[in-house]
């Protein structure tokens, strides 16, 4: 009865298109996320102390992107910088990676991110927040920008108490033994994934203890 009048308003299953994602190379994570990777046109948050693998996950995504001649950008944090050697050894295309030094304050950081997004050039932007706390309004503004420019913006914070705004599409929490997906749209969260050590291949000591270091 109702089917015919509603025919024009109903959407067929094949017409439903999810937002695009950028594959991280971490297959379990990509399979779990609706976007099959980091969401484009959205802001993601990586929480975790340095040394737990957040930069590697971003870098793996950037690595495959730059090798496909697509652009990525990284904004350094106030205390740490991105060291290029590891990525050079993995054959990252540095001609497609733009690095920005650390902005002095929150206002400048937001401005820099807005400018990077406004350029409509970068598919992936990573930013080390350092101690900066972003308000909901800040994240909302960034989300609007990313949606318009169809970029994937990844913010990283080492502060475990960083504000988890509801405007983040994806929140990943990195710890020693696991990767906890705190938020992912249209997925049942929290969800945990095992984490293995990325450096076990070139640090022999880590290879020996591979089992002990990974779950």
């Amino acid at each position, binding site marked *: 009865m109702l089917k015919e009048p509603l025919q024009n308003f109903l959407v067929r299953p094949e017409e439903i298109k999810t937002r695009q994602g950028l594959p991280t190379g971490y297959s379990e994570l990509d399979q779990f996320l609706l976007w099959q990777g980091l969401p484009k046109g959205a802001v993601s948050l990586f929480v975790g*102390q*340095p*040394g*737990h*693998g*957040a*930069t*590697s996950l971003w*870098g793996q995504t950037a690595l495959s992107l730059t090798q496909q001649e697509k*652009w990525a950008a990284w904004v350094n944090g*106030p*205390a*740490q*910088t*991105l*060291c*290029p*050697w*590891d*990525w*050079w*050894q993995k054959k990252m295309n*540095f*001609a497609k*990676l*733009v*690095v*920005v*030094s650390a*902005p*002095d304050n929150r206002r*400048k950081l937001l*401005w*820099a991110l807005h*400018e*990077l997004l406004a*350029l*409509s*050039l970068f598919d992936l932007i990573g930013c080390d927040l350092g101690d900066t706390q972003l308000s909901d309004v800040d994240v909302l503004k960034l989300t609007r920008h990313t949606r318009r420019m169809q970029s994937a913006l990844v913010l990283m914070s080492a502060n475990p108490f960083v504000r988890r705004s509801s405007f983040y599409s994806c929140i990943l929490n990195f*710890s*020693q*033994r696991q990767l906890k997906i705190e938020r992912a749209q249209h997925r049942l969260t929290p969800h945990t994934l095992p984490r293995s*050590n*990325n*450096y076990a291949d*070139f*640090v022999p*000591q*880590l290879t020996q*203890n591979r089992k002990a*270091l990974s779950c």
Partner: protein
Amino acid sequence: MRTLCLNLHKTEKHSVAENFLPFSPRVQFRDPGFIFADISGTTHLFGNEATLLSEALQVAREFYPEATAAIADTPAPAQVFSAFHHTTIVPPTQERDDLRNLPLEALLHLEGLITWHSSREIEDIISFFHVLGMKTVGELDRFQMESLRERWGDTGATLWKRLHGIEKQVISPLLPSESLTDYIYFDFPVMLLPFLLHCVEKSLRQLQRRLQGRAEFVRKVQIHLYCEYSSKCHVVELMPATPSRDLDLLMKLLENKLTEVDFDNPIREVEIEILPCPERVQQLDFWETRNRDRDKLDQLVSLFNQASLTTGFLRPRHDILPEESWELTAEFEEFSPQEDAVEVDGQSFRVKPSYSQHLVHAPRPTRLLKKPRRVSASELRQMHFLSSHPIERLEDSWWEDSRGRDYYFALSPQGQCLWLFFDRLENEYYLHGYFD
């Protein structure tokens, strides 16, 4: 000769003629606001005269909304038509016929590049013809040149020549020599940044149009903001990473600079000066892709440099110390690792080893601390070192202030993968990076 006359309907400076250089190299300004251009040799570049006229009017109306234009054979009738018909193209050799229907008052505008000695004199001539019962320019055809000369001297002869299109008025090529400067004086002191930006944008837009005419780019913009209550002057310098004429970029750079300026002492006068450089003339290959990404990046680098943010591409360097082993460069440069050199001298050869070649393959962390942090004894006790011997020993030039570093991998109690070094001079451990 075909002449374009633009009537700006406003008193303007001579430099405004530079705006119209794209339409012809032979451009001349005449007070108070007339531009004459010889378009005989350039019309074909625009397709036809109608296109050229509409494009020239578009440029003029950007700053002078009431501007009118006409194309005729000689400058004087072109001026008349620009005054009486807003946009007119008089077909070649027909200007005399078209002039005939105009009222006698049109004689006041029959000047071209050379103005009437006295407009009063022309008004008297018009009154005289009115007394004779004449109303249109065409009715003056019955007079000979000698008759007009006899009554009004040279003015009469010039009038006759202009009516018959035989007065020689040559438009010379314009060589831009005036400096690219502008000056704004506010009737009231200004404290509001948006208003100030609006006024400066207007000036910059005009200067940008002149630059376009001169085929030049902006190398540097210098803006002097003079304060109201003291002799203080804020000097703002804008320098794009690569010369360009991008007004949006300049405005963004200016806005960023001006947000740092304190406007408690309001601004009364503004002086803008542009230091130009020649436009890049690039012959593009037919098959070459037009790389717009490069322009976007140049824009970004300029913008961030103004905000003291270093931006660029990572370029690894052959340097022993990890913190100095790369740099950020505005232009991407390919990096190739050093290799051992072999010198062949007759029957013998000599290998010159490259000492840094193994460094490029040495394990390096993804995140490096800007400044190595000293690790306290208590922290050190909690760390789990992955080897008792150093993984790597780095020692820079012994003749300099060599310190010597022994690098180790360690795990923190939280499971972080750390890169530490032991400073052999200080006998202290430092945290230098994270395998993140």
